[in-house]
């Protein structure tokens, strides 16, 4: 029985986030929170392995209460168990602090053979979580997995194809192994009515900084995060080019081709 963990994140749909032109700050109102798209691919890979070798898939996330909705989406798509780590003390965590909390909580609920996470998140997009989670779990790391070829539970070896520079690498790793997944072969499944319904009422296990045993408060949230964001600023607009305004698409096209005629 494989014990599989998928680490997910609920993110704002950054494609819909707008910047207030007056203040330069983010307009978050009305922007839907979604399951990080690449996490859905990671979950699908995990569920496929469970179906092939038998086991359980747990999903874990750190975030506000609303992040439960992302977990329900995972439950509908084949996860068996959902864990939400929610506490104000976790706020402003960078990847180092986040990976610490997730690993500590995971330790509490059992050892995992395989851990999956998305390649990067839509909002933070550092792509560092996998590497640091692997460190926290003391797991081997296979990033950019295109296809999991085999899982040998007895020998504790997993074999996979990875997207590598200009080609496909086949590699094996000793379990526990953490994998990030390419989306090509792991499109998120559409849940059936039964799983969807179950996911709407399934229990979500909730933990806070108080209920995760042995948590070092110096290592969580803002105090536990060595990277800081002292400031953000709006993009400087470039100087801009020559605008073509000839009155019709056809005339604009003709004008443009005249302007670049030397280069064609």
């Amino acid at each position, binding site marked *: 029985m494989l014990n599989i963990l998928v680490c997910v994140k609920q993110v704002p*749909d950054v494609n819909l986030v707008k910047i207030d032109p007056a203040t330069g700050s983010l307009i978050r109102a009305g922007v*839907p929170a*979604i*399951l990080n*798209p690449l996490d*859905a691919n990671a979950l699908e890979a995990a569920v496929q392995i469970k179906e092939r070798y038998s086991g359980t898939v747990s999903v874990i996330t750190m975030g506000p209460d609303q992040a439960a909705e992302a977990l329900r*989406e995972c439950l*509908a798509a084949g996860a068996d168990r959902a864990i939400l780590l929610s506490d104000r003390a976790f706020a402003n965590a960078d990847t180092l602090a986040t990976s610490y909390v997730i690993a500590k909580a995971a330790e509490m609920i059992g050892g995992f053979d395989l851990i999956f996470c998305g390649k990067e998140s839509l909002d933070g997009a550092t792509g560092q979580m996998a590497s640091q989670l692997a460190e926290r779990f003391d797991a081997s790391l296979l990033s950019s997995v295109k296809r999991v070829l085999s899982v040998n539970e007895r020998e504790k070896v997993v074999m996979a194809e990875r997207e590598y520079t200009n080609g496909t690498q086949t590699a094996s790793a000793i379990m526990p192994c953490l994998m990030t997944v390419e989306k090509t072969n792991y*499109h*998120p*499944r*559409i*849940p*059936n*009515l039964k799983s*969807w*319904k179950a996911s*709407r009422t399934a229990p979500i296990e909730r933990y806070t900084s108080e209920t995760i045993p042995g948590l070092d408060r110096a290592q969580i949230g803002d105090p536990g995060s060595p990277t800081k964001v002292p400031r953000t600023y709006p993009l400087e607009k470039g100087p801009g080019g020559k605008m073509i305004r000839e*009155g*019709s698409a*056809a*005339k604009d096209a003709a004008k443009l081709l005249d302007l670049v005629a030397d280069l064609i």
Partner: protein
Amino acid sequence: MTSYNTLTPEIAEQLCSIVGEGRFQYGRAVREEYSHDEMPIYGRFLPEAVCLVESTEEVSAILRLCYEYTIPVTVRGAGTGLVGGCVPIQGGIVISTMRMNRILSYDMNNLVVHTQPGVRLCDLAADALAHGLMYPPDPGEKTATVGGNVSTNAGGMRAVKYGVTRDYVLAMTVVLPDGQIMKLGKTVCKTSSGYSLLHLMIGSEGTLGVITELTLKLIPKPRMDVSLILPFEDIAKAIASVPSIKLANLDPQSIEFMERDIVDSSASFTGNAVFPTAINGREAGAYILVTLVGDSESELAAKMDRLGEVAERAGAYDTLVVWTDGLKKDVWAARSAFLTVIEAETKLLDEMDVVVPVDRIAEFLVYTHDEAEKQGVTVRSFGHAGDGNLHIYCCSNELDEEEFKRRVKRLMDHCYAKCTEFEGQVSGEHSIGHAKKEYLRESVGDTAYSLMSAIKRVFDPKGILNPGKVCHDPEGGAADA
């Protein structure tokens, strides 16, 4: 027998002075795109001139001139039609409405929008949503203009719940062939006031007048929606489920059917295999896609339960729930790509847009596939299972064009005859144009066809508006005499 005049340089100059040089194309400046729509198999006919109009007054001035000189005038929107409706088969000029693309105003008390005809459907739909409202007609071609939608009485995926374009047109401004400007309809929901010229104009394919402004009805947008995919063993089983889905009191917003091969093509075309092909080890041969709307999750959940039961009884392999925004976007993007996928994969293409009673869809499709096999033509289909409107595409990559046309003609002769036998209609939403005239006549019969021709003559005695379309024969055939 009508004899049309060609454009003289003098008339061209007058036309040019109406719209201005920037919006006038004449002679060699006329772009090739105006010679066809999305079904070039029906021939390419280049107009002598194109006027990109911006106002009712311009349209009126152009028509007055063309009426005087008996020059054919064909109105064109986005050119996304499939029956040659906007193609100037008798030459003359084309009036493009693409620059009349402003949404004029919303009346939030009466839930209507005033708009110019050149606004694209997708833009109107998005703008209405931003106002918290929904424009219910939802034809597959989102880049078509609303003017084109009204002229063809376009239907689309939501017709099963909300009806078709006709049901949402309250009023319009129209220019008659002689240049007179007329307002039809009022911003009210009822009328019992004489013959409805408004409804005569809707679906008349630009043969009776030129629509220059529209007042359309909107509805509050539904709070929540969910789509469900029902995979079936084959198309017959899929279609057979439709009557029971309709009877289950779910008031679905749409019930679409799709065959497996087109789902596969769409997946490889978009690179996104959203529709599952193997369900619990069984290969799906066809799908039904249902969209339900409601005010709350519990209301939708109850409806989904009922749909699940109906689907299971009907032999669906499963009931899949498209709940998240991401999945919805993917599923509907795949559905919307169907026609494009067919166009991309096919060299020679023709189509039928028949409507048959819902309980005869499967029978009709089986018949069509059998006939197509006899003729050596590939047939691909999808469409609106909820209202019996089928989009059947005849494709070939091997035949030469003449041979393809001969075979498709034989195939269509049989299919349209079968459609008539089933008490169906020649076209559900793509219209007649010049491509389906013959089949229209056979379907409605000589008496009705003659009445249509007579109505055309009342509006357009000189036959200058979109000549040769729907029921008009510029050569003066029997019904036109």
